[in-house]
């Protein structure tokens, strides 16, 4: 009986271990992290960074890789500009959104478009540190060597039907987002990795114009 219990305990330990992202363990001082993350986010005025996006189609063993530049400016301005292998631009300025693909420019208002509102909320709240208190996610904070990890399970309708988990990796040195992984229910995932980050540098307002 005792042996069976120990085996069950060992199995539970192994399963729990595998369920966590490799190299990360639950954070010891979560309150301290939350405070520092919120403080750093409050000081953040702007971000300029390169990004690489990988769409991983698990069943097909195929990846779609694209690259571009990301800009953020307080309070609520985001520019995501894909440069290769295709051109695609998304600009968020408050509640206004502009999307420009290969052949057309389209404008939306996040008040009328749920999907863009959720993209907007997720991006801005990650950068501004308010994601930790978002009612749209159940958030677990983990810690690794150089990064913190926010493991988020969507609770909001529209997100939970699509994503099983969203993982946000945060650099310990400056509390900036270095990677976002969005795992779909099907097992496919989209990973955006940021590099060459410039925090609080000059970022022109013209980049966020939505006429």
């Amino acid at each position, binding site marked *: 009986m005792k042996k069976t219990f120990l085996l069950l305990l060992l199995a539970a330990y192994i399963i729990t271990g595998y369920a966590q992202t490799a190299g990360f363990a639950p954070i010891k001082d979560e309150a301290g992290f939350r405070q520092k993350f919120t403080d750093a986010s409050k000081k953040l005025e702007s971000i300029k960074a390169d990004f690489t996006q990988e769409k991983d189609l698990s069943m097909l063993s195929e990846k779609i890789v694209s690259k571009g530049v990301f800009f953020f400016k307080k309070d609520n301005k985001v520019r995501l500009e894909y440069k290769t292998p295709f051109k695609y631009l998304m600009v968020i300025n408050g509640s206004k959104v502009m999307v420009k693909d290969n*052949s057309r420019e389209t404008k939306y208002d996040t008040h009328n478009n749920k999907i863009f509102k959720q993209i907007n909320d997720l991006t801005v709240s990650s950068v501004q540190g308010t994601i930790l208190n978002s009612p749209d996610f159940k958030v677990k904070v983990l810690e690794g060597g150089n990064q913190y990890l926010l493991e988020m399970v969507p609770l909001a309708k529209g997100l939970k039907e699509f994503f099983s988990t969203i993982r946000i990796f945060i650099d310990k040195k400056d509390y900036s987002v270095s990677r976002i992984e969005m795992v779909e229910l099907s097992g496919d995932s989209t990973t955006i990795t940021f590099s060459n980050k410039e925090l609080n540098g000059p970022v022109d307002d013209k980049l966020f114009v939505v006429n």
Partner: protein
Amino acid sequence: MWLISCCAITGCNHYRNLTATPPIETIAFSPAVVTNAKYLTQFDIYGKHLSGIMLFKRTTDSTERIVFTNEMGFKFFDFEISADTFKTIYMLDRMNKPYIVNTLYRDLAMLCAPGSNHGVMFNNNGEYNLYRQQLSKNEYLYYYIPSNSSTPNKIEMGTLRKAKVVATISNDSTGEAQNIDIQHKNIKLRVRFTLIK
């Protein structure tokens, strides 16, 4: 008036020259325009616009997997098409309507042609060969293959008299489709593909 009268007499038969020419024989050809490739894809339907990346992957000799996501990785659909079956692996809820799924399936099956590679050959006029495949009782596929190529540069879906869907294809020197433009004549739907290298 003259035009209307002509149409009334001939029925504006798009394939009248073809039907006047006896078929040569039922012969094997290469109908597939796309097997393994990624395309930047734009749908324009009744004023609505949708763009993204379409991935075609031949998973067996007669099975094609087709996944369409937007540029940011948001998946719209995932289909598996084989010679005699069609499977929806994933379809975004708001797009999951039988007429949308059926139209997508027919357009995409026309391009990747996982089914028969035999057709009746017509009009070997020196410029191109035309192969006709029967889809159902009143529906046919017409593949136009230039004499100096092994891949189609135009595909039509229609009846014995008129084309309902026309796909125009620009191939490079290796026969790989660089641009594909599908236009529907009965509904306001246009789908354009540009190869991603």
